[in-house]
C-alpha cells in the first residue's frame, strides 16, 4: 500500500467549507421555499406540507454538510510536495490519488475569496495543459511557497505540450 501524503490542509478549512456550504444551501432553500410560502399565504393547504418537507430537507442537509462531512473530508484530503511532483489524495467514497509532475505545470494561481481571506487562508490552483487542480485552504505562506516552487519547476520544462 502506497503511503498517504503527509501534509494536511490547514484545520481552519473545515470552517471555510461549513460557511461556504451553509451559504449555498441557504440560498437554494430560500429560492425553493419562497413560492410555497406565498402559496400558504394564499390559503393552499398542500403548500404547507411542501414547506415542512423543505424545512426538514434543509435541516438534514445542514447536519450532513456542517457536522458530518467536514471532518471526514478534512481527514481524507492530503497532499505532498516533493521536489518533482505534487501528490494529492482525496475523496471519501471515490478515493483519488493524483500524481502531477511539476514540469507539466503551465501556470499556478493563488486565490483568496472573502471567506478564505477572513480565515487568512489561500487556495492554490495548479494548471496543466489538460486540466487543473486546486489545493484549498493553505495558510498564505505555504501557498506562496507552493506557487513559487511550481512556477520555478514549470520554467524548466523543455516544451509546453
Amino acid at each position: 500500500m502506497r503511503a498517504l501524503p503527509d501534509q494536511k490542509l490547514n484545520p481552519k478549512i473545515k470552517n471555510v467549507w461549513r460557511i461556504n456550504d451553509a451559504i449555498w444551501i441557504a440560498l437554494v432553500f430560500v429560492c425553493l421555499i419562497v413560492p410555497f410560502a406565498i402559496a400558504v399565504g394564499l390559503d393552499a393547504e398542500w403548500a404547507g406540507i411542501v414547506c415542512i418537507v423543505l424545512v426538514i430537507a434543509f435541516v438534514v442537509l445542514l447536519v450532513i454538510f456542517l457536522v458530518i462531512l467536514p471532518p471526514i473530508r478534512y481527514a481524507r484530503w492530503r497532499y505532498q510536495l516533493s521536489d518533482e511532483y505534487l501528490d494529492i489524495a482525496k475523496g471519501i467514497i471515490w478515493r483519488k490519488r493524483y500524481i502531477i509532475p511539476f514540469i507539466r505545470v503551465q501556470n499556478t494561481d493563488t486565490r483568496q475569496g472573502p471567506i478564505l481571506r477572513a480565515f487568512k487562508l489561500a487556495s492554490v490552483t495548479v494548471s496543466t495543459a489538460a486540466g487543473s487542480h486546486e489545493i484549498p485552504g493553505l495558510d498564505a505562506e505555504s501557498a506562496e511557497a507552493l506557487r513559487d516552487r511550481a512556477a520555478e519547476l514549470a520554467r524548466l520544462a523543455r516544451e509546453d505540450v
Partner: protein
Amino acid sequence: MDAQNTQEQAAVQAGEPVKHQVHHSYIWLGTLRVVAILFFAAAISVFSSIIGAISEGMRAGSAEAGLVMLVTVGFSIGFLVVLAGIVFLVHWLAYKRLYYVLGPDEFNLYSGIITKKRVHVPYNKVQSVDQKASLLQRIAGVRTLYIDTAGGANNKAVIVPYVTKHDAEWLRSELFARKDAAVRGVVYQEGARPSAAADAARPQAPGTPVPPADEREGHNVLDVGQQAWDELGGVFAGAAYDGGRVSYEYGLSNKELVLAGLSNKTSFAVLLLGIIVALAQLISFVFDVVPGDDANAIASAAADIGGQILQSGMFALAVAIIGFIIVVWIVSVLGSCIGYGGFRARRRESRIEVEYGLLQHTFQGVDIERVQAVVISQSFIRRLFGYCELSLAKVDANSEGDEGKNAQTKRGVVIHPFVKLSKVPEILAGLVPEFGDVPTERHEVAPVALRRALTRRCIVQGVGFWFAVAVAIFQLTMGLWLDDGLVRIHAFGSLVSIDAYELCTSACVVCYILAALVTVVSAIGAVLWARSSSFAFNERFMQVTNGGFSIETVTFPRQKIQYGYTKTNPLQRRAHTATIKARTAAGVGGTTYALIDATQADAESWLAWLEPRV
C-alpha cells in the same frame, strides 16, 4: 508574382518585416461562395411565390400572370446583383487589410475592415498546420491554412484563407522550421534551408531513399486522379515547393480503399437501416400469413376493408425504400472512397504529413514532437477482417464554423484508415520510428474484473436490465389499471372489443426477449473486455488496451502524460483493484486514457512510475 517578389526583396533590404498578402482569389472565390449561398436562399424563397403566381395565372389569364412572374424574377435578380456587389466590396476591402507577417518570434495575422484584429502565434506554440481546399479552391490552386495551437477548449485555430499552393507549402515548412529553432533556442536564419540544420540536429528516421512514384507502396485506381491534380496543380498554384526530404511514404491499395469506403460510419448506418426495414417487412409478411386469431382482431378487420390492396401497396413501398437505401449506400460508399482518394501519408524530416480527398482536399501536418499518442483502433467490422485503423492523437483546436461537423479533425490524424494488423509495425516503424520502443510487459486487468465487468455492464449500466425493469413496472401498472382486461374501441364503423390485457402481455414478452438479447450481448462484451484489456509501461512509453467487440490500443510517451491518477470506489477497494487514468493534452481540452480494475499492485507501481525521475 514577380512584382510581389521585388517588393518583398526591397522590404527585406529595408529591414522591415515582409507583409505577405493572401491570394486575390480571396475576393472573387469568396464572393462567389457567399453569392452561391445567397442564390440558393433566394431561389428557395422565390420558388414558392412563383408557384403561387403560376397557379394564380391558371385562373386569371396567362398574360397578367406572366407579367407578375417576370416582375418577381426580375426584382429578385436585381436584388441579388446589388447584394453580390456589396459582398464583393466587403471582400475587396477585407482583402486589402488581410496579411500575415513572419516576425522574429511569432507569426502575426492582421485582418479586419473596421475593427482591426491581430493574431499572434509564438512559433513554439504551433501544434500542427493543416490545409484544406474545396473543389473550387483546388481548381484555382489555392488552399486554406489552419494553424493549431495548444491551449485547450476555447482556443481556436488560426485560419489563413486563400493562399496559393506554393505559398501554403512554403509557409508550412517555414513555420515548422522556425518552431524547431525556437524550441531548441537557436536564432532562426532567414533563407537558410531549414532542413539542413534540423537534419543534423535530430535523430533521423531510418533513411530509406524514396522510390519513384509508381514503385511506392499502396496504389489504387483513384491515385491517377490525384496525380492529375498534382500535375495540373490549379490555375494559380505556383511552382511546386520542396518542403524537405521524405523518408517514408505510402498510399492505399485498391482493396484497402474499397474496404475503407465500405466500413465508413454513414454507410454502416444506412445498411443497418436497410436491414431493419427488410426485417420489419418480413415480420409483417409472416403475420399476414398466420391466420388471424382473436388477438389479431384489428388485422382481420383491416383485411375486410380492402386490406389486400393496402398490403400490396405497403410491399411496393418497402421495396422502393430498400431500393432507395441501396442507392444511398452505394453513393455513400463511393463518396467515402473519393474522400479517401489520393490518400498519402509520409514522413518528411520531423513531420508527419497526411493528405486525402480527390475533390475536397485535406492536408494535415504535425511535428513528431507534437504527437500525443498513437491509436490503433479495431472497430467490430475491421476486427472481423483482421484490419484496423491507425491514427495519431494531437492537440486539436476548434476552428471557427466547423465545430462538431468535422469529426475527422477531432479524431486526430488518421494515418491509415484500413490496414492489416500485421502491417502495423512496419508502418509505424517507417512513419513514427520514435514510437518503436513500445512496452511489451502487459499488466492484465485483475481476475475479479470479469465478475465486476459482468455486473457493471449487465446490471448497473445494463440497458437491457433497466429496460426490462421499466417494462415490468409498465406491465404491473397496466395490470392494475385494466381490471376486466377488455377495451372497447370504435374501429371501422363498428364496436370492436380487444383483450387488451393479452395484447399488453404479448408486447411485454417481446420486450423481455429484446432485453435478454441486449443483456447477453453486454455479457459477451464484458467477457471479451476482461480477456483483452491491459496496460503496460516501460521507460518511455505507456500503452492502454481496452477490448470488447472493438479493441483500441493507445500508446503514448511518458512525457506527454500531463498527470495521472487512480480512482477507487469502496467495492474496488474490497476487491483490491483500482481504475487508472492517464491524462494527456490530446484532442480539444485533453483526453483521458483509462483502464478499469487494474490490480492494486499494478496501479501502485504505475503511480510510482509516474513520478518524474531526475
